[in-house]
């Protein structure tokens, strides 16, 4: 079934995004520092842009589609868990904060790996970092991409391949020609749509359910456990839920796609504004969308496929034009995540692999050329992989999350704040974190009732500190002005 009232707002949204891409391309063509412009938008972001691009990059398909679906089945306990994401709004920017901004300018770092390379002075660090970014974020990008295509498919009735192509063409064109500036500007639009969409749908659902009292009453009748912090099946133990603070709150510092944004803003004032706006934005979206999932249950009982809860609910409780705007929100969330990942993987290949290992002497023209081509090829590769899509959307996404956090968190934090941190500590902690995470995830997920990421993050912390201390004599404090 084709819903025109839904398609028209989506179409308008895509057109605006295209225009932004072409506008940003003028900056890319006129810039005298191509790498900094293309991959960091010239470090000119203000507070609102920074907040929006952080929030939109962070908020993905799982916030709008997967998450509400889980809430629908587990109840208020899952909303509680989702609120562990609030620190992603302020903690990340406060920790990376001014120090990262100053140091990355001093090092003239364009990517997170640039920073690590100069800080630890080690090609092994560069290699492990580049490899894990490319592998994990490629997987994560594919998952988001599939989510985007599926969403278009379910909204428009087009078949999967056509939907995939529409999504791919839109994203690829504006990212390739506009670079980071286009990504950040479209993120601002997408982030705004995400917030507005959440608020509209929340109000619509409460009205459709006859008020909160009424909805809570129905839930209590159906299964009182829905109203507890422990989940409808009692599976959400305090320990398990608490460990999500590491995965989706504190550990977010270690996500390269987030960290790179913390080197792209203009001044202190932008940072201060972004912390506040970002926290309000993330709070609104995470609280709103997950609560909507719970409230949807009495309003629309019996939805079997969790991922269909949000789209079905929207079409049911909202008038068509509003539904179109709200359904642009998950689309926006997916695009704004995908575009950041594409930019990041591309910058890793160009700056950290090509310029570092293959051709350090590349001319400006070569770099420009390679950047466009690499971005295009990676984009097309993702499209090809998305043709036979893997299933578990959230799972893949969280896999990448946990893997990157285990690898990068301590290397970044100690790199900034601990002068004794050295390359031996960094390398060993990255390896321990990555290997342990993959092993636990595969062999004993959620071991000891904690999320799989907990032990790898703690183990890489211990490894980092002990190895750095034990090898102090080897690195006569390489003077990085920390």
């Amino acid at each position, binding site marked *: 079934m084709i819903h025109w009232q839904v398609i028209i707002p989506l179409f308008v949204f895509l057109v605006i995004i295209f225009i932004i891409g072409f506008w940003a391309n003028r900056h890319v063509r006129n810039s005298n520092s191509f790498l900094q412009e293309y991959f960091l938008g010239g470090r000119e972001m203000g507070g609102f842009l920074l907040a929006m691009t952080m929030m939109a990059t962070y908020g993905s398909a799982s916030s709008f589609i997967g998450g509400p679906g889980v809430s629908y089945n587990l109840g208020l306990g899952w909303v509680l868990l989702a609120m562990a994401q609030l620190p992603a709004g302020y903690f990340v920017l406060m920790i990376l904060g*001014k120090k990262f901004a*100053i140091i990355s300018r001093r090092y003239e770092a364009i990517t997170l790996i640039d920073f690590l390379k100069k800080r630890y002075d080690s090609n092994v660090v560069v290699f492990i970092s580049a490899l894990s970014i490319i592998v994990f974020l490629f997987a994560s990008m594919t998952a988001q991409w599939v989510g985007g295509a599926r969403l278009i498919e379910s909204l428009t009735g087009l078949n999967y391949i056509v939907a995939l192509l529409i999504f791919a063409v839109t994203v690829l064109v504006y990212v390739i020609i506009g670079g980071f500036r286009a990504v950040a500007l479209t993120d601002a639009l997408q982030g705004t749509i995400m917030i507005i969409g959440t608020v509209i749908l929340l109000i619509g659902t409460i009205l459709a359910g006859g008020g909160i009292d009424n909805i*809570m009453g129905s839930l209590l009748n159906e299964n009182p456990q829905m109203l507890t912090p422990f989940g409808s099946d009692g599976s959400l133990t*305090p320990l398990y839920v608490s460990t999500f603070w590491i995965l989706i709150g504190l550990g977010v510092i270690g996500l390269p796609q987030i960290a790179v944004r913390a080197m792209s803003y203009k*001044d202190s004032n932008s940072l201060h504004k972004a912390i*506040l706006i970002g*926290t309000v934005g993330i709070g609104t979206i995470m609280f709103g969308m997950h609560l909507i999932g719970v409230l949807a249950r009495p309003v629309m009982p019996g939805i079997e496929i969790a991922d269909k809860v949000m789209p079905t609910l929207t079409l049911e409780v909202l008038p068509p034009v509003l539904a179109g705007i709200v359904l642009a929100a998950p689309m926006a969330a997916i695009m704004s995540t995908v575009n950041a990942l594409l930019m990041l993987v591309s910058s890793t290949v160009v700056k950290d692999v090509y310029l570092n290992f293959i051709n350090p002497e590349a001319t400006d023209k070569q770099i420009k050329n390679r950047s466009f081509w690499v971005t295009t090829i990676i984009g097309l590769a993702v499209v090809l992989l998305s043709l036979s899509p893997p299933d578990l959307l959230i799972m893949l996404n969280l896999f990448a999350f946990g893997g990157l956090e285990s690898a990068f968190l301590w290397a970044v934090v100690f790199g900034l704040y601990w002068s004794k941190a050295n390359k031996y500590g960094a390398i060993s902690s990255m390896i321990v974190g990555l290997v342990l995470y993959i092993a636990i995830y595969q062999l004993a997920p959620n071991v000891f009732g904690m999320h799989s990421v907990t032990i790898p993050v703690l183990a890489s912390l211990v490894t980092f500190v002990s190895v750095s201390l034990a090898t102090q004599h080897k690195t006569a404090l390489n003077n990085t*002005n920390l």
Partner: protein
Amino acid sequence: MNDKRFKIANREARIGVVLVIINFAIWYGFAYGLGNGDPSEYEYIFGFPAWFFYSCIAGTIFMIILIWVAIKVFFKDVSFQDGEDEK
């Protein structure tokens, strides 16, 4: 090495850690402190179970206000370029 700006940055990072600890305490304390009992005996505030209202709604609003105050009171403007600050 003894860049003044880094002192400011370190202090702000510590404030971030303190805020996150407060956030966690509010979130955990209200959720499991008030939510432990039998759901049929829950108190309700604005239609929500009390634990949920305090932990997820009031707690979040409180954190946002606290963050706003922390930024206004403690966060300082510094230049990000080297060499501009040494007046």
